[in-house]
């Protein structure tokens, strides 16, 4: 126990440090059936109680309020984390998913008792098919990477059904790490495709790599540099020419809503990160949802169940004919699907197109404000995000992009994605999203310009930043060298 005069520290005070053995929060209900001898019922009852916290509700309320006060979310401030689409999450989404008619429904209830939930899922399938230009949608995958797995396994099954064993999947050097990791999980060899000097796929290199052993290409368009690959139709045509399929990583779908669709670009499959484009929150790392949309040719292979609507307007669940099988239990991350559906209904057809327009306008505006002080390796009109390089600061002042990111924290701004994509030296990947005002963009630009000046005046200031955060730079090497991955009770407890 701590001494009575000691306040819990803002950080580092564990819930296990609070309360005392007789502290209670929620009591189980009084037993209204005969008690039972656990020793007789359970083959192996516990010999000692698990060392869980013993705290009051007041302890819990204050502990998590303290933790929350050290956390930065979209509601805390500007969060231009490239490739993550940290747009504002409307509060009605949270209200909707908590309605008892959605939250208290069991996945194995008879379809007749969950027509509202099935109608919502069906409506979302239809909307996502329209947005993606691909007719068949499964809502099953729990996240983007999970969608990649489902999509690529469907592609694998498609080839296998044709007696066409293929071994390689092409992935650009600018791709998200999940793409090559998924390729490996699906039993394929990942082959890297270089980017050209304009930041797109190097078409010549692609043509040399393509052959009848290639199962698919995984592409993001706009890509992770925030650039739209204007050769996209040539790329997908070349891929199809050798019998391979084109998979689109939909992480950057926000930029093209209502303007162009992956299906129209020649893609055969797409996953959609609902927690990005459709504003379900990121939850500190999840849950998200990664529905997959595909062509008619791939539709029979999707993981089920999917929602179908019959002629009488009744909704039911069904598995595609040649499904790869389940990728999870139950029916998808329904709570996340409710939020995405709510967002789409609130935003509507005109709103979704405005989302793309405003996201692209904001990114290009911000790029212009920053381009003089920060090298722009690919100097083109960008889409929803752009990548700056900190190479000049590093060369001239010994200040790294990491230092810039940490200094931004002192100004109350969440840093952009750093050191990604890998093809840009000292990369800063900035995605403002459509929900931020011009005033916020102007302030961010002025802060980043000020930080460039600070780097010149006093590099040490940046190298030791941040100063104002709840903790400062943490010793990541020590965390691996002496791993402490779980609290344990002291032997005298």
């Amino acid at each position, binding site marked *: 126990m701590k001494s009575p005069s000691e306040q819990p520290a803002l950080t580092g005070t564990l819930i296990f440090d609070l309360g005392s053995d007789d502290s209670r929060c929620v009591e189980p209900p009084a037993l209204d059936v005969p008690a039972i001898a656990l020793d007789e019922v359970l083959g192996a009852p516990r010999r000692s109680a698990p060392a869980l916290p013993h705290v009051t509700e007041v302890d819990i309320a204050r502990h998590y309020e303290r933790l929350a006060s050290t956390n930065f979310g979209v509601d805390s401030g500007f969060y231009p984390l490239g490739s993550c689409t940290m747009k504002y999450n409307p509060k009605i989404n949270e209200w909707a998913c908590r309605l008892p008619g959605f939250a208290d429904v069991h996945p194995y209830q008879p379809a007749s008792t969950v027509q509202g939930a099935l109608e919502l899922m069906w409506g979302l399938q239809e909307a996502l098919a329209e947005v993606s230009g691909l007719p068949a949608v499964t809502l099953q995958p729990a996240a983007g990477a999970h969608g990649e797995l489902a999509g690529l396994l469907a592609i694998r099954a498609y080839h296998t059904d044709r007696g066409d064993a293929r071994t390689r999947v092409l992935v650009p050097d600018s791709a998200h790490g999940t793409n090559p990791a998924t390729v490996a999980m699906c039993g394929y060899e990942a082959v890297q495709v270089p980017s050209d000097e304009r930041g797109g796929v190097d078409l010549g290199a692609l043509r040399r790599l393509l052959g009848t052993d290639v199962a698919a290409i995984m592409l993001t368009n706009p890509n992770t540099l925030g650039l739209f690959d204007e050769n996209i139709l040539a790329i997908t045509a070349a891929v199809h020419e050798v019998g391979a399929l084109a998979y689109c990583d939909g992480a950057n779908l926000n930029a093209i809503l209502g303007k162009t669709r992956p299906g129209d670009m020649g893609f055969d499959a797409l996953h959609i990160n609902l927690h990005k484009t459709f504003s379900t929150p990121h939850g500190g790392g999840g849950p998200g949802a990664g529905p997959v949309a595909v062509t008619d040719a791939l539709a029979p292979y999707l993981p089920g169940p999917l929602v179908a609507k019959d002629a009488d307007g009744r909704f039911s669940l069904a598995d595609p004919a040649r499904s790869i099988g389940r990728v999870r*239990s139950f029916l998808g991350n329904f709570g996340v699907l409710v939020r995405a559906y709510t967002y789409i209904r609130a935003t509507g057809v005109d709103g979704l197109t405005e989302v793309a327009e405003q996201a692209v306008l904001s990114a290009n505006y911000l790029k212009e404000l920053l381009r003089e002080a920060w090298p722009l390796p690919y100097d083109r009109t960008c889409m929803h995000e752009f990548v700056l390089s900190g190479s000049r600061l590093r060369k001239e002042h010994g200040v790294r992009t990491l230092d810039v990111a940490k200094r931004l924290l002192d100004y109350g701004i969440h840093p952009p994605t750093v050191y990604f994509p890998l093809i840009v030296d000292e990369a800063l990947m900035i995605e403002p999203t459509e929900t931020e005002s011009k005033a916020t963009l102007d302030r961010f630009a002025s802060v980043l310009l000020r930080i460039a000046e600070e780097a010149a005046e006093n590099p040490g200031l940046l190298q030791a930043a941040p100063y104002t955060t709840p903790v400062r730079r943490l010793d990541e090497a020590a965390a691996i060298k002496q791993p402490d991955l779980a609290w344990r009770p002291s032997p005298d407890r």
Partner: protein
Amino acid sequence: MLERIGARSVDDLFSVVPEGARLARPLALPAGQSEVELAEHLLSLAARNTGAGAVSFLGGGCYDHYIPAVVDAVLSKPAFFTAYTPYQPEVSQGTLQAIYEYQSMVCQLTGMEVSNASMYDGATAFAEAALMAARVTRRREVVVSAAVHPEWRETLATYASAGALDVRVVPACGGVSDVAALRGAVSRQTAAVLVASPTFYGTLEDIPTIARGAHAQGALLVVGANPVLLGVMQPPGELGADIVVAEGQPLGNPMSFGGPGLGMFACRQDHVRQMPGRVVGKTTDVDGKVGFVLTFSTREQHIRREKATSNICSNHALNALAAGVHLCALGAHGLAGIAEACIAKAHHLEAALVGTGRFERVFDAPFGYEFTLRFRGEVRAMQEHLLGRGFLAGLDLGAFDAADAGLVSFAVTEKRTRVQLDSFVQEVAQL
């Protein structure tokens, strides 16, 4: 803004999109709704899920437990739910510490040394455990008991379908794993034996015996658990499990039509470098203050790409937070109390249903708070009739496997009152 960019119109910014790929018409979607209209629409959809008000005995991996109000109060804090993955630890201590505390509680419940920061659900945690066992043992065959939830087995089969694993399914016997058959199926090629306790039928397995059979051939043992029962059952880690996974939904997460759930994943310290997913570790900052970071990241896709232990990126951090808060609110005493209440009520109902003469016992194995009986009659008609009386009368196991036709499983949580149990039994008696 356009002036600064030097563009005439927003359309100019999209001129890079080739003509042939442009969408020349508006999306065929409804117009946006005002919040008032939208709320009305959502309320009407939610109202059409009539089952939400029924007295439910449905389980099968998703359970109707009570969630203390303090859980949602914490989950509703925007600093938690609007944050991204804690890649900037200086401004993410809240998420990181909450996950570290969650990991600690999972270790306490499972008897394991290390927990990851969460997976999507129990089924994917189960499949990833098989893949991890193959990496650890450098073997590629796994033996799975048919008593495991069919959707977990199917997920495993899907993950294995790309060729990384060969899956052997061993039939169940008497509602539990056929221990002798399992032992017979294990060889020096076996990476892991995978079982669940409770099983899909609600029964409890003889884990120590199964562990001996697996370990004798150098295979790992993967055990799927129920986190509520872990409040009173001896932890799998003490019984020989090498990896413990669970569907964590019963801890603080609403049923929500089956998702998002929570994949709990725990293993031994020796195997941490083969573990999938994120993990949080404790360290200090430059001033010596205690702090938390994502660690052992060289296993993960954003560093290792095609050599990563898994492609998982987004996980179920917010569901893990819910589980952590729920466990704090209960404490060991409360968790055990909930488990005892569920078990007592389930056993009460089981005996009463058998007493009606309409159901009969088929398995001798012990069970927790879910049990399986055979119905003497047509299951569908029985369930339909009882639905009309306000009851979701268990899970028709014949819908999962024709060989189980006639079997019905019932889950009984602490939310079911004596009055509800008794009136359900009365209805059954009148069938």
